[in-house]
């Protein structure tokens, strides 16, 4: 397995299929680069600024509501930036621009698949999420069902998603930082892990959100600057750009045709489902809906978030196309100076090389610092989501049955953050040489198959009972995990068997119906008195979901 697909998929959004589309294996091991002082200085400025914010946030983080949801005091605009930040990981900038560089139009199709989930989340979920939930999305699934059992199930699947996603980010971060900053892999892992713990423990959601907002602004600014500087070389003409790109690219005019990415309809639809509904089941994204004061602001958040994401994807498309000409024709960016050979640092470095080509070491340093900041912000959000599943769901609701004091609950969540941080560092170091490409695919698969079906049924279907929710949730969790384990990305690439037992890399199309079917069947077969009471309780929940009456509001209002 070459490093290129590994990093591309490791960093976040690119799911397992990226390995299939990231082009021919480039081979070789990424070398540690000379220490990049521009990047380090700019990154230190970012850390300094966020430390200051954490210090400020710490003085305002007293109650559980402050810790989990920043007191629901974040505005729709701020939250929109933070959601966009959560969604645009380093993989978005590096992996997707590299995909356009290599495959042209395919990369653009991929970006639309990432984007199309957002309007659906807004139309069908955003206001119900805000009206019913308080700290975690299990507040909604367990609203009228058995608190202990349903929360345990939701916490297990949340933690599964968080752990795989976190591990993928950590390993990707270590590799990327080694490359961009010239730091040792282990040093990089420790820096990421410790800063993450620091932000979450002291600043809770307030610090995590601001880290995310600052990073989103840096990313939008840096990406736009690179795009503008690069486009100026083509007189800002899309016509000239594409004419020259198709002239020099090895695909020729086929550059602007759909290629291998979505050739197989089953994979295409499964990928689309997984990306769309996986997003709607990621605990750290769902949690963002509780940081605003009401449904109005929740809707606004999605409007801003999807605006930024959609804008940035188009910027990345242009960056990738510019890279084909500016980076792809410049021998200084290729190993041994051989144009068309192996890019220095691997295939994902297109955006970085382009920054250097159009803006010199200063811009390269800035963009490298942005990439580092991006990883930090995303892992912090993940750690907070994982910690709240442990402290709010498992400890406060399941173990203490709602009788825990706020002080002990916060203490538990801080201990949980430290544990998650240590686990992330240790596993990050252990998995340095492992192929972890499947983990992000697994995280999205579990989110789409275990979290999403139960969540959407609990909001829309009165007939859902505890038994149905448990079967649906666990059924989705296990089938997603089993499908991924038996697919090529684990069975062949990790276990080392010859042929995959499950022919597709994307589990969503198969695991989601299993979850829905199990939830439906076992709810229907549940004739207990408790099931009857749960179905009746839907009526009140429905009114609250629609009106927001009785929902927790901002502490200030």
């Amino acid at each position: 397995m070459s490093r290129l697909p590994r990093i591309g998929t490791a960093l976040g959004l690119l799911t397992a299929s990226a390995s299939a589309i990231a082009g021919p294996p480039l081979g070789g091991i990424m070398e540690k680069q000379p220490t990049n002082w521009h990047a380090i200085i700019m990154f230190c400025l970012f850390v300094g600024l966020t430390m200051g914010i954490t210090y400020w946030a710490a003085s305002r983080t007293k109650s559980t509501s402050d810790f989990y949801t920043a007191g629901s005091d974040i505005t729709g605009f701020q939250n929109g930036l933070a959601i966009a930040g959560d969604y645009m990981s380093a993989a978005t900038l590096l992996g997707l621009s590299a995909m356009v560089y290599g495959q042209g139009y395919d990369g653009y199709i991929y970006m639309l698949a990432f984007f199309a989930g957002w309007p659906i989340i807004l139309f069908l979920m955003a206001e119900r999420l805000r009206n019913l939930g308080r700290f975690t999305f299990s507040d909604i699934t367990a609203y009228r069902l058995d608190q202990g059992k349903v929360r345990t199930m939701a916490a297990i699947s949340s933690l599964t998603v968080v752990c795989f996603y976190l591990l993928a980010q950590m390993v990707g971060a270590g590799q990327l930082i080694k490359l961009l900053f010239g730091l040792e892999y282990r040093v990089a892992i420790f820096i990421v892990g410790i800063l993450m713990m620091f932000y979450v423990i002291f600043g809770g959601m307030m610090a995590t959100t601001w880290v995310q907002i600052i990073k989103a602004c840096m990313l939008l600014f840096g990406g736009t600057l690179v795009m503008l500087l690069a486009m100026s070389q083509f007189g800002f003409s899309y016509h000239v750009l594409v004419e020259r790109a198709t002239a020099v690219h090895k695909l020729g005019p086929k550059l602007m045709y759909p290629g291998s990415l979505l050739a197989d309809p089953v994979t295409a639809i499964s990928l689309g489902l997984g990306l769309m509904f996986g997003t709607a089941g990621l605990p750290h994204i769902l949690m963002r809906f509780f940081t605003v004061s009401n449904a109005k602001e929740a809707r606004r958040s999605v409007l801003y978030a999807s605006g930024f994401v959609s804008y940035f994807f188009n910027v990345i498309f242009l960056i990738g196309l510019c890279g084909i000409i500016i980076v792809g024709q410049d021998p200084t960016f290729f190993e041994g100076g051989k144009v068309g050979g192996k890019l220095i640092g691997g295939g994902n470095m297109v955006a970085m090389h382009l920054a250097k080509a159009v803006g010199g070491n200063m811009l390269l340093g800035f963009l490298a610092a942005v990439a580092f900041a991006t990883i930090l912000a995303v892992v912090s959000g993940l750690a907070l989501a994982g910690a709240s599943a442990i402290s709010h769901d498992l400890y406060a609701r399941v173990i203490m049955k709602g009788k825990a004091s706020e002080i002990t609950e916060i203490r538990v969540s801080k201990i949980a953050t430290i544990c998650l941080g240590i686990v992330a560092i240790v596993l990050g170091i252990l998995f340095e040489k492992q192929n972890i490409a499947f983990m992000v695919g697994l995280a999205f698969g579990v989110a789409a198959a275990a979290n999403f079906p139960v969540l959407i049924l609990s909001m829309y279907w009165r007939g859902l009972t505890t038994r149905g929710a448990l079967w649906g949730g666990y059924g989705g969790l296990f089938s997603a995990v089993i499908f991924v384990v038996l697919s090529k990305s684990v069975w062949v690439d990790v276990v080392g068997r010859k042929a995959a037992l499950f022919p597709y890399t994307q589990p969503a199309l198969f695991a989601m119906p299993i979850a829905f079917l199990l939830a439906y069947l076992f709810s229907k077969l549940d004739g207990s008195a408790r099931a009857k009471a749960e179905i009746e309780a839907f009526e009140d929940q429905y009114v609250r979901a629609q009106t927001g009456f009785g929902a927790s509001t901002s502490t200030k209002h």
Partner: protein
Amino acid sequence: MSSEMYERMRTDPKFQRLVARRGRFAWTLAFIVLGMFYGFVLVVAFKPALLGRPLVAGGMLTIGVAVELFMFIFFWVLTAVYVRRANGEFDEMTQEIVKAAQKENK
């Protein structure tokens, strides 16, 4: 008390109207997005050559890029349309319903 409030709101004809209207609106928009997106995915899967053709003869802008750019903008416009109506008309209705229920409660 809370359950009584919910009961009162549920039987309010205004509530029924709000739910029906907002539901219809949200699902219509959702079906437009899903229909366009999965329709596009099917074209990619079965008729890829179509998307590579230039929009105007001799131009560099292909049908595929133009359609996608349109979807990026159009989907976002739909979210703006939804947010505008939900934050205006629907939220006003909601507030009236809650107020009416609270008044009756006293």
